[in-house]
């Protein structure tokens, strides 16, 4: 009897807590940017908020803090799903998210629409980056662009012949037993799908993120084969491992970001990186504000700051991605000559075969009711099976 009473009290407590836990989504946009709150808590991709501690010449946080009085605290996300979970903890004002986080955050109401009228630098942004599926919902902007880039194929030029396709990490994986370096995330399944689009056109893959069960199984089979050759893993939180491993020759071929490529080239490691012929996965990142942001004024000021020529120019040179405006391009040229051409900032054709990260959905993210695809839970389970077996 006694125990029962304790249990009942506990149950009531739990239900109360759960009830408090569900946040009410607010669609209120800011009407004007007020005074800064003095603090800003961000979720970032590695290298997106540099304060000069890594390289004194790359510092776009300190000028922002001095100008606005908003002290920036940044947390690095390991991959997009991790970023989503971080934002939902309610401790952040916003962050930089890729398409496979933004679609989920917008649909779930975790992020708020952005009043772009308040942002001075928004007008300069390339039109091709505005009102895209990954940064707006029903024509309402939900964030501002940061930069975009492809996931690249990287290899050690001393141990691996020059490559033109992804074959090196798939069909030829056996040649690099234990020395493959791949991205540790279910999102990597899309990389397998892109390779299949070129090698097995019969599968009829039209979008590497929306796969029918048959197409999905083929991608997993390709990954299973690759996993028998003991690849090593990296992600957004452990990218530094990949740099160390390539520099030491522990791994000789794999998938990477321009960021690691730049770091390795800076220390004169014998590597080369390309966008292979099949095309590749990639990202077009967006700064978004949490619907429950505690410091909305600071977040708006940050979004505006990140579109400024100086900040965007520096940040995109630092990470090795494409700037978001002509002004930022011009500024980037002053620190890294040829940066805009190198990253194809204005060359829309280049981006044609780059599939920006997006989330797998049961309805294939289309209007066709007859098709069903493997949803993201299916991707997560498949990845658990691959890495855990």
């Amino acid at each position: 009897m006694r125990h029962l009473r304790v249990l009942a009290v506990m149950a009531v407590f739990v239900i109360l807590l759960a009830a408090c836990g569900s946040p009410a989504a607010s669609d209120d946009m800011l009407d004007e940017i007020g005074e800064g709150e003095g603090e800003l808590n961000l979720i970032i991709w590695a290298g997106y908020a540099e304060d000069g501690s890594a390289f004194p010449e790359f510092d776009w946080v300190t000028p922002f803090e001095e100008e606005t009085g908003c002290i920036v605290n940044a947390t690095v996300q390991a991959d997009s799903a991790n970023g989503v979970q971080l934002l939902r903890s309610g401790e952040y004002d916003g962050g930089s998210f890729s398409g496979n986080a933004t679609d989920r955050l917008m649909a779930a109401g975790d992020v708020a629409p952005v009043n772009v009228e308040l942002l001075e630098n928004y007008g300069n942004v390339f039109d091709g980056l505005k009102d895209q599926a990954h940064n707006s919902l029903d024509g309402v902007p939900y964030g501002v662009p940061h930069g975009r880039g492809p996931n690249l194929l990287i290899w050690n030029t001393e141990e691996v012949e020059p490559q033109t396709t992804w074959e090196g990490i798939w069909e030829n994986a056996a040649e690099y037993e234990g020395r493959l370096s791949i991205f540790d995330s279910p999102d990597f399944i899309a990389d397998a799908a892109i390779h299949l689009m070129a090698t097995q056109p019969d599968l009829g893959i039209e979008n590497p993120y929306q796969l029918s069960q048959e197409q999905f199984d083929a991608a997993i089979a390709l990954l299973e084969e690759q996993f028998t050759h003991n690849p090593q893993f990296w992600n957004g939180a452990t990218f530094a491992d990949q740099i160390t491993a390539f520099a030491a020759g522990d791994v000789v071929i794999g998938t990477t970001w321009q960021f690691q490529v730049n770091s390795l080239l800076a220390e004169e490691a014998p590597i080369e990186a390309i966008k292979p012929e099949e095309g590749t996965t990639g990202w077009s990142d967006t700064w978004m504000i949490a619907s429950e942001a505690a410091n909305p004024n600071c977040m708006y000021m940050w979004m505006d700051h990140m579109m400024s020529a100086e900040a965007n120019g520096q940040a995109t040179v630092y990470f090795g991605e494409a700037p978001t405006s002509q002004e930022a391009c011009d500024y980037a040229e002053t620190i890294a000559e040829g940066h805009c051409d190198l990253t194809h900032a204005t060359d829309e054709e280049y981006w044609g075969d780059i599939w920006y990260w997006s989330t797998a959905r049961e309805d294939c993210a289309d209007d066709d009711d007859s098709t069903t695809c493997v949803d993201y839970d299916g991707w997560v389970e498949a990845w658990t099976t691959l890495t855990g077996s």
Partner: protein
Amino acid sequence: MTTRTGEKPAGRSRRLAAWLHAHPRAQLRLLLSAPLVWLVGVYIGSLTILLLNAFWTSDSFTGKVNPFDWSLAAFEQILGNDVYRTVALRTVGMALLVTVTDALLAIPIAYYMARVASPRARRFLVIAILMPLWASYLVKIFAWRSIFLGNGFLAWVLQPFGIAGPGTDEITNSWIVFSYLWLPYMILPIYTGLERVPGSLLEASADLGARAGTTFRRVVLPLVLPSLVAGSIFTFSLTLGDYIVPDLVSDATFIGNVIYDNSALGNFPIAAAYSLLPILIVIGYLLVARRLGAFDSL
């Protein structure tokens, strides 16, 4: 202080004190209420919410949990996929291996400390064993990482012999680091257990003609077994729940990694359902440990 001022509040608090003196049970309840609220509300409450998640569904697109949408889908998925069993067996196997390793390392050290060493040396050894516990757990793991790395210390030592470094993807790395991390938790209980064994018993055993090995097997070991089991609770359960070591020094996936990955990747029901498993294993282990008398020697 209240008596010195002698104001009205003092009278009130004195009346309260008198009332409490007359009602010892109320006194006890008041004293225990704060820690109890903490234990039941915050500690068990949060665990309960976590476990409730196991019986709820989540939206496969947004990853948000739908509270009170009851379903056993998470359990069906876990039972329907062999990988969860493989990972569980790997983890339990590692926990047992680490426990045995630590026991084999700890018994001689503890025996030396308790029976052989001079008081001075004993004090020094106790400090030496406690010292690593002052350093952060993460610092120690990263120290081991720098040893294992492809261009790290071990590679440098082994290079002249033509042996490559282990790198950071070997499951044996996890075994070494776990054994290192939890060793003090095994040494200390065995050491206190051995200290309690009366010296006269060992002498009696020798007088009756038993050799050192026999004495150890038939006298010392049975007497310190409860301490050994007590130590093994730490080594076993700490290994069972850890996900940082396997992640940082190896590529191996343990129970903790699956739970962490699924909660990080937004499949909370799976993470919650799977976290029931280590809870059940540890409860089972504790029940066995209690039978062996481990709690009497803690």
